[in-house]
């Protein structure tokens, strides 16, 4: 299988063979995924929430890092496409016995896998797996280290498009721990490609990666300035472990300056929507009244997430 060396997830026709990152994907490919997902949203609202597209195909959930939520959404999506789903939590079984990632993957490929959904704590792990699998196997990155979470980024784009229609007039703010966030990186790449003219990242300097402006974003250390007149507020999850080192003094101080509260949200446009990839830390990065408020689209995000994953899997399986 020839894959583009400049973007090893595209085949010679410029179609998706793997989904590893949203970086460098043409806008047409992103829109195709969003459009296809729209059709699947209809399917998920039917009596029988299932189509026969991937009948007989074996989808392996390879989770080298535990995540019940993401694994479940992929599992539901694959099952709604009629695929057979095999879940493997690998951190406890083979890895501790010293089997390498590639050996694990080779073994599973020998079980006639058609698709690997990969979650790994190390940035780039899905690239390495994609490089070594048989040409007919498709790899979907379900989150790798701090690098990318493309299906989350896509479902966020779906959500924004659903509520706002068009990206080319939007001002979007991404708030919180950008440094450690694979979600933020995927959101930034997708927004840039889809023509969003103004992307702001908001957070203390300890949580902003160096030269983040090179990704095409504007940096706002002050949340109140950063939220002014934005159409979309995308909150990020703050891991508790960030409070243990010297990155942040306390959850309380973070909440005071970077937590999304009603009064801070009031600085955004009145019809601004609020997204969060979940799971939320209420009272740390977001106030409950905002999370459950009328501007929150956090629950629809989850529904759209299944349709996005169905779209990604069916497009990959068909290419």
């Amino acid at each position, binding site marked *: 299988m020839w894959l583009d060396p400049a973007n090893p997830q595209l085949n010679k026709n410029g179609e998706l063979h793997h989904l590893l990152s949203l970086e460098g994907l043409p806008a047409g490919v992103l829109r195709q995924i969003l459009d296809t997902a729209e059709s699947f949203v209809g399917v998920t609202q039917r009596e029988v929430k299932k189509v026969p597209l991937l009948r007989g195909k074996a989808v392996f959930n390879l989770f080298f890092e535990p995540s019940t939520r993401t694994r479940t959404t992929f599992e539901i999506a694959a099952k709604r496409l009629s695929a057979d789903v095999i879940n493997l939590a690998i951190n406890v079984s083979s890895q501790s016995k010293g089997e*390498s990632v590639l050996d694990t993957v080779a073994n599973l490929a020998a079980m006639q896998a058609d698709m690997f959904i990969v979650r790994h704590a190390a940035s*780039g792990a899905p*690239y*390495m797996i994609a490089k070594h699998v048989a040409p007919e196997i498709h790899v979907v990155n379900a989150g*790798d*280290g701090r690098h990318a979470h493309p299906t989350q980024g896509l479902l966020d784009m779906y959500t924004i498009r659903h509520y706002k229609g068009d990206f080319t007039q939007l001002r979007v703010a991404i708030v919180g721990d950008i440094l450690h966030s694979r979600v933020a990186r995927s959101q930034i790449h997708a927004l840039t490609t889809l023509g969003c003219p103004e992307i702001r990242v908001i957070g203390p300097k300890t949580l902003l990666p*160096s030269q983040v402006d*090179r990704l095409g974003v504007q940096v706002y250390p002050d949340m109140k300035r950063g939220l002014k007149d934005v159409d979309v507020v995308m909150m990020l999850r703050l891991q508790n472990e960030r409070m243990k080192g010297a990155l942040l003094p306390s959850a309380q101080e973070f909440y005071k300056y970077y937590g999304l509260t009603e009064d801070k949200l009031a600085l955004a446009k009145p019809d601004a929507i609020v997204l969060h990839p979940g799971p939320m830390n209420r009272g740390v990065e977001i106030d409950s009244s905002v999370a459950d408020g009328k501007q929150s689209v956090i629950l629809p995000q989850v529904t759209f997430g299944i349709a996005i994953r169905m779209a990604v899997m069916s497009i990959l399986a068909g290419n």
Partner: protein
Amino acid sequence: MKIHIKSGRLVDPRNGIDAQRDLYLAAGRVVAVGDAPAGFSANRVIDAAGKIVCPGLVDLAVRLREPGYEYMATLESEMEAAIAGGITSLACPPDTDPALDEPGLVEMLKFRAKNLNQAHVYPVGALTVGLKGARLTEMAELRDAGCVAFSQAEAPFADNQVLMHALEYAATFGFPVWLRPQDPALAGSGVAHDGEVATRLGLPAIPSTAEVIALSTILILARETGARIHIARLSSAEGVAMVRDAKARGLPVSCDIGIHHAHLSEMDIAYFDPNCHLSPPLRSLRDRDALRAGLADGTIDALCSDHTPVDEDVKQLPFAEAEAGATGVELLLPLALKWAAESQLPLAAAIERITVRPAAILGIDAGHLTAGAAADICIFDPGHHWRVTPDALRSQGKNTPYSGFELCGRVSHTLVGGNIVYEKNINKNK
């Protein structure tokens, strides 16, 4: 054995020679340059027409992987690779397992290497026991066993007090200390340069400040203790500026960089190529250009291969988990030539930085072909193109960012002490 090396272009930077000259060798030494001594009758004539004859290369950092890492490479395989790369003298860092912190280990290594009758091996002893950065090794004993310098390799010091004492103690005996400047806390668990690429790829990062803060500490302590310091594997533009400044102020400090850092930058990581996981990390294009300029103006004295053969099992892993380092002994010459050509410098400039300059840092009489000098010689075809493939490399480590690339310049003969230890007919696949 008397050897006549005929019709080659002799490049001997120390003696300022770059011209067609014949070489005459006898009893392991150069006996004449240019005209044959009276009554010289060669047992063997090497036709070096169209080739370059230069001093055997001197490499400041070659991991032979023994003791302790024989699964990655062996003394035999890496010594073979070194002579295939034209290297006749090499220093090996102490980061073996166990570390080179006892005279017995050093003697054993020297003994085993000597029996192979290939390149001269100069062990660099551990500065602290087990490279743990806490207790000093028996440096004088280690020197007597054959260590030419002392180093921590990649390992950190517990604190600056230990570093200061180590330098004071080494200075007592005049032992050189080779240090790789990197502040361990600032480097943290980083695996790539703290810049655009690490930000994009979400890789834990090592800022340039990790290098320059450690470097400034080292330079201050060098001045205070009077220790002879060699800075190993500089990687940042600011680091180059600091060394240039220190040299201008008369501090007796020397400095090297690895060959990959003279050519590659963070951009070459592309999509997580584990072969570009190096230590120090490949930094920005600006840093790389500063290293190249520093190498040209003499701030950086030498190029070394920083040879690190790594086994596939620990290299074919996600970028951060993959073991750092690249194989290098067979790429040192072609990459040095590439640097000189791209910098529009004469070929002799490249040879100088991989022969006489590193020999001076090692404190050995090598890297030149004066009459009377040891006949450690490299003969190579500067126009021979070859593709870097696993089969083309003798090293057991096939890990290189240049895998699949074509390089120019290949060794046809390597002589150590007047013996032809490596010979390859490279004309046929030209």
